[in-house]
């Protein structure tokens, strides 16, 4: 490579390629908390989120991305959570979302 300046680069696709993503962390999270697979993506967790009221933190988006193996920035993002637990109270599928946040933090600590 000679570091030539072409004036443009290769546009990255916005597709989510599950074949290329590293799903080991995601699979480990689901193995420890299988009820996460019952999520219907209703967004009640995000709607009731105290942190989301004050910042752009979006828990539904975050855990969906993590399940797809897209971990970039997830750890920093999850630190916005204040662990108030309201999301757990409203979850219609009874998922322990507060525990899920702690689990993601533990698993993605090195990302």
């Amino acid at each position, binding site marked *: 490579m000679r570091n030539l300046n072409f004036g*443009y680069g290769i546009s990255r696709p916005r597709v989510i390629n599950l074949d290329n993503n590293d799903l080991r962390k995601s699979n480990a999270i689901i193995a420890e908390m299988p009820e996460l697979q019952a999520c219907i993506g209703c967004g009640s967790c995000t709607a009731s989120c105290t942190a989301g009221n004050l910042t752009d933190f979006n828990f539904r988006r975050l855990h969906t991305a993590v399940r797809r193996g897209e971990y970039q920035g997830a750890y920093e993002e999850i630190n916005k959570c204040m662990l108030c637990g309201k999301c757990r109270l409203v979850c219609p599928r009874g998922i322990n979302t507060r525990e899920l946040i702690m689990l993601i933090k533990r698993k993605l600590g090195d990302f």
Partner: protein
Amino acid sequence: MRRTSWQEYQKDIADDKYYYARSCIRQNFFPGSEKAFLDIMHNDLGIDIFDDPLHTSCTGIGYHSDIVPLETIMTVVARQFSLMADAGYEHFISSCITSFGIYNEILSTWEEFPETEERTRRYLKEATGRELVKPRSIAHTSDIMFHHRHAIARKAKRQLRNAFTGEPLRVVEHIGCHYAKIFPKSGIGGSEFPYVLAGMIEAWGGEVVDYPERRHCCGFGFRNYLVQANRGYSIANSHKKLESMAPYRPDFIVANCPGCAMFLDKWQYAIAEMEGTVYGADGHGIPVLTYEEMAGLVLGYDPWELGMQMHQVDVEPLLDKMGIEYDREAKYLGKNGKYIGKPDIAAVNCEEARSIYEIKR
């Protein structure tokens, strides 16, 4: 139930007496291909084909870039058809996929909206004094090559096989979008099962590689490329295809569109410079051929006569694999033996060090 609708995917192609319309960009990037096509038709197959010096560009590039109006391109196309009638031919064949799409699009527009045909007749008469005569058939030159593929196979000096192992070469075929994605019925196999290049490869002993992004566009797309700021999108398409085909270890790529052959060839250089990835064997690129070059090699033409020294990715590894004898020293000598200049050493070519590149196969 046995499928009976395959007939819908066939196309009527004339056997002889073609009026040949050249391509603009092929003259620059694959300058030997059109000559090779004419030579194969004339000398090898004895077919009557007329290469008319009077015809012009179809102005398709300008049309797709929004700088040539529809009325203008219709009149230009009408003039080409009129020249064909003057020369005494009825079967119009075009060397360029863009032109092929343009001719089909305009004939279809004239059929759907007869007032546009009347208007074009008037413009043509006023501008040139000529009368519009519509062709009996329109075909792309790859259709013609496909049509005569068995005749070429009978005259073949060699096959698309590895001369050392005897195994068929693995060939990626790439069909231009404007060949059959605009009007599916205008292409052999329609837009779903394009068979025009695959048929040639199979007839000449090669093996067609089927890979996930086989039908993806090369990324040319005119305005996607012509504006520099958009070229990242353009190269991303070729990148996607190359990433997808690399694990199947193709020996070469063959395309029937001027833009596709150019982009799949030259973007390999740009990708190697931008991110250090090469897709071919031994840390080089994957050679990209036009179908005329492929036919020329099968018929025993000299690779430098076919203009293969103008490729970005060196073709020597492929020539060696096919057991073709050629003069390495004559690569950059022009028709009259004059030195035509040599490109800088690049990653996708044979001289470059291999270690700094990530090889995808």
